[in-house]
């Protein structure tokens, strides 16, 4: 180690004499050289007068370490002007590369000791922790690099990569609800098939829940054992979880009873230093080239390039991740979980429907996500509040309490049991209805006896993950062998040529997963331009949102406004037709799909066919105006004359209606009046279906008003779906285009003109519509047309 001139001396100093020569052994605190310096001091003489005089002092420089002097950087008589000048090189017998609990592993000395000679404490030499299960063992940068180099060679020779496996909701799902045990014991239960292989365990030192003997029920993702079997030939697997050590080990015992997949490579929250994020550098401090991660959350990995994000494994509906309640909840997760939950049951329902023709299957599960969405919002707020308080111990305590609360809630309230009971009830109701139906259809009778199970054992996430992991592995070793043969060829050439053959470092032809994976992913949705509508909460930066980042990592570009030239996909909420969706729908080239399409693409790493995820937008909305019209065009053409034609045409429509149609129309208007502003769009979408060619609809004033109200809609509100079934033209729609052309501006209806002066408020709109309706209805006569 080099010793430099320390701060705190009276510079400049002049070296007088070396005490120790080169190759001599020095002890700590033994003198190395003598030097002198000059300083100004106050001196008193015998008469009591104080004088300031300049004096020269001689001092000794002591060694701060043991060892052998290998080189002097200074000469006798040299003057040292400032701190930080190299003085001497001393080779230490032990460089304390590996330290355990503040002790050097090789020499057994205490590394934390400090004295007057200490410039830098010895424990700063080893600061990297790369052991899975111990926080006391630290190594130096050099040692870490050496260890990784070893590991790399071993993996390369075995043709493997490292795989970091997350536990909760990636390969298993855990709940604490003892309902599971009851279901397991009851073969009659509809969930028996799904839960019969659920394993359970207790933790001895469970200080999380003070409720005595808390049982954990662990469901393995279907096909887990085969997955591990196949993956262990290509990957060396590590567990990295945010759960406690005891929990992680208990789960590892379940998923890997022979300890052949993971061995002792288990890293838990207890060894992670922070409970807010995971870091690849915790395990691979210097080199992450060969590490692949599978996790259901990208946020805690900071969207690492090594991450293969997997579909969430949500076996126990509503149970969530019991260990994530301790984590700071990310907004993305809150919005992601319910949406996933919506998507999955719907997929299941399709399968279920073909197998057993029952229509109610989806209902209870669909009701769950809406609950969680609303609940999730308040959680976001809570989290935002608590995030401000940083790492205060109270916050951590509070988080611990939250986790406890989750567990206790699962134990006492037993949400799964409740959901199943609800399901049973609906089954009964549906069963009664269907006995009659099926009797007519002559369909099979058996399914009536079948109670619907709450739990579905049909997750196929692992197949998708496996395909991706195999792909990465192949890509890596293809690239590796390509580079290697290239390098060898180069070496042969170099040998033949005049240049001396340099042995190339192994790094030169080991590819980097961080580069390979984004390349593979980037090709998936390359060229897609994506717009989110009704998916991401307002006020959030779309590109920085979880979904936005996720889909951009697959090469798609995320934009925020409808751009007819470039936009290729709109990812929308199927329940709500936002103005963006409608605008985009005018262009047949733009595909409007559910979020499920995105999930499928991003999990399968393939651009899946959009057709099954297509959101139907009625022709009226699409054809409401030709897609060439942008919003600006509409605004310009919208004028009084447009309004006139509207009312005109509306009357035309009305005149052709029969009485029952009037009834339906009346209901619809009542609906409209009863609704809040936000639901305007639903009314609109339901009512315009007939007029596919009425191109000037949108020019009416009513339309423009509605557009304005639409723009006030927040995407966070959950809209009560209005009755879309009537399909009748509503008063604000116009007749066919040619008629308008002829009659344009010819007749000015006095009533409409009067209403025209109404304020822009919605009261005015409603009043106007009501008046129009009542007037026409009372006359019940075709209105005179020019």
């Amino acid at each position, binding site marked *: 180690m080099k010793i430099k001139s320390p701060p705190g001396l009276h510079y400049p100093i002049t070296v007088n004499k070396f005490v120790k020569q080169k190759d001599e052994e020095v002890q700590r605190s033994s003198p190395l050289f003598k030097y002198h310096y000059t300083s100004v001091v106050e001196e008193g003489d015998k008469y009591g007068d104080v004088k300031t005089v300049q004096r020269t002092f001689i001092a000794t420089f002591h060694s701060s370490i043991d060892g052998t002097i290998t080189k002097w950087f200074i000469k006798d008589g040299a003057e040292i002007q400032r701190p930080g000048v190299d003085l001497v090189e001393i080779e230490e017998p032990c460089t304390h590369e590996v330290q355990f609990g503040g002790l*050097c592993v090789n020499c*057994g000395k205490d590394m934390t000791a400090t004295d007057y000679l200490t410039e830098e404490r010895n424990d700063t030499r080893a600061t990297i922790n790369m052991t899975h299960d111990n926080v006391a063992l630290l*190594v130096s940068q050099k040692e870490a690099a050496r260890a990784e180099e070893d590991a790399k060679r071993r993996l390369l020779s*075995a043709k493997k990569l490292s795989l970091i496996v997350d536990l909760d909701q990636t390969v298993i799902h855990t709940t604490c609800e003892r309902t599971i045990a009851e279901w397991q014991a009851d073969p009659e239960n509809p969930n028996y098939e799904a839960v019969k292989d659920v394993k359970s365990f207790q933790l001895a030192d469970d200080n999380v829940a003070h409720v005595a003997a808390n049982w954990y029920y662990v469901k393995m993702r279907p096909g887990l054992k085969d997955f591990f079997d196949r993956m262990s030939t290509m990957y060396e697997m590590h567990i990295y979880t945010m759960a406690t050590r005891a929990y992680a080990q208990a789960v590892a015992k379940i998923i890997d009873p022979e300890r052949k997949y993971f061995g002792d490579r288990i890293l838990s929250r207890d060894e992670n230093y922070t409970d807010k994020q995971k870091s690849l550098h915790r395990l691979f401090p210097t080199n992450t080239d060969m590490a692949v991660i599978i996790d259901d959350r990208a946020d805690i990995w900071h969207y690492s390039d090594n991450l293969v994000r997997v579909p969430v494994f949500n076996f126990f509906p509503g149970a969530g991740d019991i260990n994530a309640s301790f984590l700071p909840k990310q907004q993305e997760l809150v919005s992601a979980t319910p949406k996933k939950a919506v998507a999955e049951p719907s997929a299941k329902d399709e399968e279920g429907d073909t197998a057993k023709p029952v229509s109610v299957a989806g209902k209870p599960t669909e009701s769950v996500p809406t609950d969680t969405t609303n609940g999730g919002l308040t959680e976001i707020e809570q989290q935002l509040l608590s995030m401000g308080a940083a790492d205060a111990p109270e916050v951590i305590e509070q988080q611990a309490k939250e986790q406890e609360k989750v567990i206790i809630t699962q134990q006492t309230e037993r949400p799964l049991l409740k959901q199943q009971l609800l399901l049973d009830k609906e089954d009964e109701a549906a069963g009664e209805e269907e006995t009659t139906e099926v009797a007519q259809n002559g369909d099979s009778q058996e399914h009536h006896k079948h109670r619907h199970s709450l739990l579905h054992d049909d997750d196929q996430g692992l197949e998708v993950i496996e395909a991706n992991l195999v792909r990465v592995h192949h890509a890596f070793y293809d690239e590796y062998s390509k580079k290697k043969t290239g390098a060898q060829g180069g070496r042969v050439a170099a040998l033949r040529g005049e240049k001396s053959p340099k042995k190339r470092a192994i790094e030169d032809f080991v590819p980097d997963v961080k580069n390979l994976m984004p390349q593979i992913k980037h090709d998936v949705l390359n060229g897609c331009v994506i717009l989110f509508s009704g998916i991401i909460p307002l006020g959030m930066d779309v590109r920085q949102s979880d979904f936005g980042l996720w889909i951009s990592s697959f090469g798609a570009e995320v934009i925020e406004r409808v751009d007819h030239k470039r936009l290729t996909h709109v990812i929308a909420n199927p329940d709500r037709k936002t103005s963006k969706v409608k605008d985009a729908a005018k262009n047949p080239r733009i595909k409007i799909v559910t979020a499920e399409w995105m999930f499928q693409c991003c999990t399968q790493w393939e651009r899946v066919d959009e057709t099954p995820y297509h959101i139907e937008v009625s022709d009226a909305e699409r054809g409401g105006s030709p897609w060439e019209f942008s919003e600006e065009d509409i605004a310009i053409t919208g004028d009084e004359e447009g309004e006139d034609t509207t009312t005109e045409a509306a009357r035309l429509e009305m005149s052709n209606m029969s009485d029952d149609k009037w009834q339906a129309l009346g209901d619809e208007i009542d609906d409209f009046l009863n609704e809040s502003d936000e639901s305007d769009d639903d009314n609109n979408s339901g009512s315009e279906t007939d007029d596919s060619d009425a191109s000037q609809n949108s020019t009416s004033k009513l339309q423009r008003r509605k557009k304005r109200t639409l723009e006030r809609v927040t995407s966070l509100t959950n809209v009560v779906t209005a009755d879309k079934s009537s399909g009748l033209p509503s008063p604000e729609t116009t007749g066919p285009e040619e008629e308008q052309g002829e009659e344009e501006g010819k007749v000015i209806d006095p009533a409409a003109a009067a209403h025209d002066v109404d304020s822009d408020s919605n009261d005015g709109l409603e009043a106007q519509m009501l008046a129009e309706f009542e007037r026409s209805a009372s006359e019940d006569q075709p209105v005179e047309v020019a």
Partner: protein
Amino acid sequence: MFFLKELEKTIQLHPSYFGPLIRAHIHRELLTKEEGSSTGKFTIVCILDNFDISDGQVMPGTGAAEYTVHYKAIVWRPYKGEVVDGVVTSVIRSGFFVDCGSLNAFVGRAMIPSEIKFDANATPPQWTDNGDQVIEKGTNIRIKIKGLRSEVDKMYAIGTMKEDYLGPLQT
């Protein structure tokens, strides 16, 4: 090394325990709290039965009573150079961890005889000389303490097995 040591402990007792069985409560409290605990310097192995309880004093404000208990206990204090037996808890590339009762020790690569090599491909990973010496998780082992450091309630030790008669114990 084991010692017989006189110790003192202050115990606070909730008013609900006041009654004829108060001595038993204090005794139980002493045993559960003290036995097995480590002060950082030594570990209390066993508290001897003969102990002395002072008069209780009610704490103002809480109603709890405070008792000072004098007792003798067998304590264990490890020393540098001491030879101890332990159980291997974890085996890694840079060495292995040994549990010697309350003392957590680590034996680094440099402290392992050179004929014993690390085998990462074995399941579980182990240090072995490919003969009868195999060090894996759960192995009973004899080591010599080479360095010792204590924190508030913990002790860390560095062990060596590079001397005669040290290493895995034959079972």
